[in-house]
């Protein structure tokens, strides 16, 4: 097993872990968004989605445990990379200019990542079954009560902007890290990443606004 730790311990190895776990989170976000869209169907549709999800029983626990594992890998590799990169240039330049390449998404990756981490902890305390008693009230009631508070709406919308920025760089970047950069496909991957970040940003971000002001 030494070969595995040696391989994953290198700079490219850490990036591969970031890419693999990042891809899993994109999958998770897609499923999460599909589920959340039932909110547009009203209280019954959303509650029924939640019931079906909980009916998975132990499988749901396994999925949650798996997500936590992927999450820890993503966060810790990310923090190590961030720290090493910070140390790799002890003296900063007096003049900084972007000669091309760098985007808002790529430049803010560690910061949006840390903000998303904080948001996820906040989000879990708001809605998850580990922190909120879901016995007496339906999940729709919990959600609609939370978003009566404009501070929550603002925080959630801001967090979705962070997710969109993170995905806008993360999506194409993970293909590059896997070595999947080909002139035939890279333009589609780049566009796909931007579309995906918009879908996540708007898809999730509009929900709190819809619940607070429209529903």
């Amino acid at each position, binding site marked *: 097993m030494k070969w595995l730790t040696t391989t994953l311990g290198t*700079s*490219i190895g850490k*990036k591969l872990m970031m890419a693999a776990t990042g891809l899993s989170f994109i999958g998770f976000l897609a499923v999460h968004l599909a589920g959340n869209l039932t909110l547009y169907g009203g209280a019954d549709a959303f509650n029924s989605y939640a019931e079906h999800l909980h009916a998975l029983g132990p499988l749901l626990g396994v999925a949650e445990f798996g997500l936590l594992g992927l999450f820890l890998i993503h966060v810790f590799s990310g923090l190590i990379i961030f720290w090493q990169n910070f140390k*790799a*240039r002890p003296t900063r330049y007096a003049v900084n200019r972007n000669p091309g390449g760098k985007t808002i998404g790529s430049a803010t990756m560690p910061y949006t990542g840390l903000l998303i981490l904080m948001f996820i902890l906040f989000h879990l305390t708001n809605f998850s079954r580990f922190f909120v008693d879901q016995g007496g009230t339906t999940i729709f009631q919990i959600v609609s009560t939370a978003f009566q508070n404009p501070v929550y709406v603002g925080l959630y919308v801001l967090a979705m902007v962070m997710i969109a920025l993170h995905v806008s760089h993360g999506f194409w970047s993970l293909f*590059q890290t*896997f070595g999947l*950069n080909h002139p035939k496909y890279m333009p589609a991957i780049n566009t796909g990443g931007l579309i995906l970040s918009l879908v996540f940003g708007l898809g999730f971000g509009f929900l709190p606004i819809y619940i607070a002001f429209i529903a």
Partner: protein
Amino acid sequence: MTTTEEHTINITLKVWRQKGPRDKGRFETIPVQNVETHTSFLEMLDLVNEKLTHEGKEPIAFDNDCREGICGTCGCVVDGVPHGPQKAMTLCQLHMRKFSNGDVIAVEPWRARAFKVIKDLMVDRSPLDKIIQSGGYVSVNTGSPQDANAIPVPMDVAEKAMDAAACIGCGACVAACPNASAMLFVSAKVSQLALLPQGKPEAAERAISMVKAMDDLLFGNCSNHRVCEAVCPKEISIINIARLNREFIKAGFASEAV
């Protein structure tokens, strides 16, 4: 036409001065009068140095050699961009016509933990040589040359290998990278050999040991910003970084090199 006309501009240099590796260093402001726009950036520095020498001051130390854009020795960060504002151009090939009268031009050395400043604008780029020593070669037995057509190489592969081999090892990619990563350099050196039949037997060992050497020398991790390819005087593409990643994945997971 303006090309034959004599043009002179007045500029102000804000140049990094550092006595040695242990010195803290500081910026020195040097006004430079009547710079002919036909002079190259390094010739302008030569003229400044001549004046400084006449005044009994220490001239500005900077690296340079061929002054033809092919050796990879020169390079400073000019106004925040390695090799200055002109694309696909080494610093020696940058001319003062790219600047305007009254410009304040900041000149800094490559900055990375792996590159120690030797003096002023000169940095120690031997870590790049150490990466090459760790595997950037092919072990070829000497003997009589074989027939040129004995090993077929398709034209497009030869072109890709040649594009990667255009790297002059100047270190601009490291200087430009927000993480001071040497991935573009390593990827070019791995690609030029991995693409060709002669480089394949040692491809796995090469990918592993060059990446390890890069990490051990305290270069940063690549995070796909693409700034490296934007400043590379030889326009090395990050498609080479993807190839290095593939070579590394193959070596790490499907070979016995680790």
